């Protein structure tokens, strides 16, 4: 990467075709750059601009007023904003560790051959690919009073019926359960792949040294899996920060604002309260947060170099 001049295949471009070649990567990248500019970079710049305006959604340009950082300051004084941020962080801090724990346990359990092991491992992944809106819909059904299967089960066990989605606390628990249900197999999938990549000799060596299950786990498996675990957590955080559709379908943020996660509240600010400027400042806030996590992930993994080492180039 030291030379600014274009080099193809490790050799300097030949003079004869030099000119045509110098434009080559640009030609290949141009369409993607145009798309990225039109639907990613421009909207981000536009959001930044809108976030400095008092911008009512459905009124004309005349109603817009420049307020500088007013929207951002307004956010810090908005209890609903703090509420959504709190709910969002709680969601992340409760759901992801539990997903990790379940996924890790399942990966350890299923990291051996038994009758039907392959089938179990593949079918377990189906919830990850279940459409988010269907997940929200299914859980809404499961948790219905009177006829929802979960309540039917609770009643059979002699427990009292719970109006899951009608009560602020249980509704919040419910959207977290929904996420855990859908995403722990994702953790399982990554950790299982990591586990199978651990050289068998290392585990056998520990066994020869007389290490029991917990010792093996602590001194061999967990240290070797740490990079995978960190990657999995980062991927899940980035994903959980933008949770919208499943919760929207399940509770629409209610009852009250008890499940109004960050993107649901942003949505309500823009299209419910019609405060587009305010909503844009929330959008920018979430954007920055996401970029921080995404950059951490990218820096940590640096996949491009790994790819080249693998390809021998």
């Amino acid at each position, binding site marked *: *990467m030291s030379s600014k001049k274009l080099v193809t295949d490790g050799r300097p471009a030949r003079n004869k075709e030099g000119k045509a070649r110098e434009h080559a990567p640009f030609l290949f990248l141009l369409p993607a750059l145009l798309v990225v500019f039109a*639907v990613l970079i421009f909207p981000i710049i536009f959001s930044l601009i809108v976030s400095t305006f008092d911008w009512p959604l459905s009124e004309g340009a005349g109603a817009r007023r420049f307020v500088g950082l007013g929207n951002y300051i307004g956010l810090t004084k908005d209890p609903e904003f703090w509420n959504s941020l709190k709910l969002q962080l709680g969601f992340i801090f409760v759901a992801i560790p539990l997903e990790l724990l379940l996924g890790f346990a399942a990966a350890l359990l299923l990291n051996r051959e038994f009758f039907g092991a392959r089938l179990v491992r593949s079918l377990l992944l189906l919830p990850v690919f279940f459409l988010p809106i269907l997940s929200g*819909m299914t859980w809404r*059904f499961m948790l219905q009073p009177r*006829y929802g299967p979960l309540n039917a089960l609770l009643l059979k066990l002699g427990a009292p019926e719970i109006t899951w989605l009608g009560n602020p606390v249980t509704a919040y628990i419910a959207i977290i359960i929904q996420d855990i249900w859908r995403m722990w*197999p994702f953790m399982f999938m990554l950790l299982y792949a990591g586990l199978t990549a651990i050289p068998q000799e290392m585990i056998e060596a520990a066994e020869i040294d007389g290490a029991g299950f917990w010792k093996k786990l602590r001194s061999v498996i967990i240290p070797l899996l740490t990079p995978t675990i960190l990657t999995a957590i980062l991927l899940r955080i980035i994903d959980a920060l933008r949770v919208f559709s499943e919760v929207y379908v399940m509770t629409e943020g209610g009852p009250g604002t008890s499940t109004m996660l960050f993107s649901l509240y942003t949505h309500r600010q823009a299209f419910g309260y019609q405060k587009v400027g305010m909503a844009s400042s929330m959008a920018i806030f979430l954007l920055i947060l996401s970029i921080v996590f995404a950059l951490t992930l990218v820096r940590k993994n640096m996949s491009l170099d790994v790819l080249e080492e693998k390809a021998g180039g």
Partner: protein
Amino acid sequence: MKKRTRTILTSTIIAIVAFLVLIIELYPIGITIVNGFRRDIIILSGQPFKLSQLTTRSYELVLKNPGFQLGMKNSIIIGLLSTGISVLIGAMASYGIARFRFGWRNSLAYSFLVFRMLPQISLVIALYLMFTNLGIRDTVGGITLAHTSFNVPYVIWLLLPFFTAVDKAYEEAAMVDGASRMGVFFRIFLPIVAPGLVVAAVFAFLNSWNEFLYALILTGVKAKTAPIAINGLIGGETLTWGQVCAAGTLMLVPVFIFTLGMQKFLIRGITAGGVKG
């Protein structure tokens, strides 16, 4: 001998536990599929395992529902269009990154990766205002464009490992014969990486197929997609779970066919670029 018996016993116990976990885990999906064939009155009777009087009536109703018909049609068109565009544009960009060395190569590649991870809610408000101004809100073209915003960066990173794994010798030979870079890319390189393109196309299609937030905000009546139509079926206090579940099951068909058919590529598929190698 004793050790052998113990191993078999452990395996059996683990198999039983594993299948139990699997059954519980898949129950919500199972009940969705089953509800599509149950009469609403049975669904509302609260007997989650009762399987009598199965019927295809919910499917008939939902398939005759003009809103759902339109949503399905739009979802398929938008999915195919955005997949086609994203795979073409993404493959070109991926090739540019895989085969050329230039100063801003790393930063560019990593920016694409970061772009893939941006939350949609952060972009959708600006897109709504832009699309309203351009008059492309609630059009198939508009929502397709919105879907390319996540699919192009996604495809670029999904394809990179396929592309870097191809030996440069084929292209070099063709270039020596006087073919242009573009010619080499389209005629020599793309056929070689066809399997990778198929994987990218399948996952890009699923991304578009499953997408909800953009469709919710950027479409309304004409260009609404199937997930929006299903959301409409759930509505306030509706009790037509049978139809909702039938519609959901129809949406699940391509998802599960592709997921189970693409086992080998699943990790690459959902983490594209986010995981080493």
